[in-house]
C-alpha cells in the first residue's frame, strides 16, 4: 500500500476531481490518495466521484480554507 498526494490548491472543480481520477487510474487497490484542495466544491465532488466509481473516502479535514480528502483506491464495481 502506498500513499500519494495530489495538490489541487488553487484549482476549481472539476479539476481537483480530474486530478484525483487520473492519479487513482494509475494505482491499485489499497493505495491512498490525499487530495489537498481550496475549492469547497471538492467536499461534494470528490466523495460523489468516489461513490459512483467504487472508491472509499477515508478522511476529510476542512480547516483554515484548506480541505484534505483521503481516498482509498478500491477495485471498483
Amino acid at each position: 500500500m502506498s500513499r500519494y498526494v495530489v495538490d489541487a490548491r488553487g484549482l476549481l472543480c472539476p479539476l481537483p476531481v480530474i486530478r484525483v481520477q487520473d492519479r487513482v487510474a494509475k494505482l491499485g487497490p489499497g493505495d491512498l490518495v490525499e487530495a489537498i484542495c481550496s475549492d469547497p466544491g471538492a467536499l461534494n465532488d470528490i466523495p460523489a466521484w468516489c461513490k459512483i466509481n467504487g472508491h472509499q473516502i477515508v478522511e476529510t479535514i476542512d480547516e483554515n480554507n484548506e480541505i484534505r480528502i483521503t481516498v482509498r483506491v478500491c477495485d471498483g464495481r
Partner: protein
Amino acid sequence: MSRQKRAVALISGGLDSLLAARIVQDQGVHVEGINFFTGFCVEGHTHAIRRKDRDKRKRNNALWVAEQLGIKLHIVDVVEPYKDVLLNPRHGYGANMNPCLDCKIFMVSKAREWIEENGFDFIVTGEVVGQRPMSQRRDTMPVVSRQSGADDLLLRPLCARNLPPTRPEREGWVDRNGLFDISGRSRKRQMELVAKFGITDYAQPAGGCCFLTDASYSAKLRDLWKSRGAREYELDDIILLKVGRHLRPRPHFKMIVAREEGETRFLEGYRHRFPHIRTLSHGGPLTLLDGDGISEDDMRFAASIAARYSQGRDETAVEVSITSTGSGTSNLTVTPMPPGEIESGWNV
C-alpha cells in the same frame, strides 16, 4: 449468449442527457458517462469563488446525474485540444464566441476515441432535433455524426425516431420502438419522461452550461486577444475572465478588481504572477494588473482607480501598497478617482 452491449453517454449534467442515458439503461444496456472539461464550463466556478454564493447548493451536476443513474462517470480534461475548436471553428460561431457545432463534433469524436479504447459499442447523447440553433438542427445533426467519425454508432434516444435508424437500432442492441421522436424547444415531452421515471430533481442551468454563450464573457475574451495581438490563451487566462470587475483604462494594461472577499481570496492565488494593488488604510479589494510595460505612473493611476472601489472611496486620501513583479512593494497615498472620471468605456 452474446455479451451485454455497452454505451458511453455524454453527460452534461442537464436533463436531456440524464433522460437519454436512462432510456438506454432501461433497455438493458450497460451505460457509463463521459463529461468533458473545456475550461469554459459554467459548472460551479463562480459559486466556488464568490462569498455570497457559498451557501448555495454546490454540486457538480454531471457527477450528480451519474450518481442518480448509478453509473460511472469519466471526466476528461480537454483544455488543450479544445483550443483548436475555439480558435478555428470550421462551422463558425453562434451569437457570441460559442462554436457550438464544432464543439459537439469535437466531443462526439472524443467519445468515439474513448469507446474504441475501452471496448464499448456505441455513443449516446441527449440531443433533440430543433432544440438548439446551431448544433441540434435537422441539417446539422448528420454533420455531427459524420464529421465526428461516430457515424451510425451515435444514438440520440430522445429523437431517434425522427432520424434514420442507427446501427444499435438495426442490430437490435436497442429497441427503436422504445426510443422517442421529440423535436423542438418545448420541454413538455421531457417533463412526461421525468414523471415516468420518477425523477424529482434535475439541473436547469439558466443560459446554458458554457461561458462562451455569454455576451459579457465573450467580450472579455475578445479583449484579451486584441490586447495581446494574438488569439491564444492558457487555462488561467480563461478562468480569470470569470472573476472580478475588468477595466482597461489604458490599451496596454487591464485591471482585475475583486468585487468581494471571496474573489479577493481567489485572486490572492495569482498575486505572485501579476503586479497588484492593495488598499491599506481602508478595507478594499485586491486588484491585479495584466499587461506589458506597466510604468510607475500607470501603477499610480491604477491605484487611484482601485481606491475608488475601497471603503475609502469618499476620502481625499487612501494609502495603498503597490507590488510589481520585479521591484518589490512600495506604499503611497492616492486620491480615489471621482466616479465621473472612470470612463464607462474602460469596462471590458
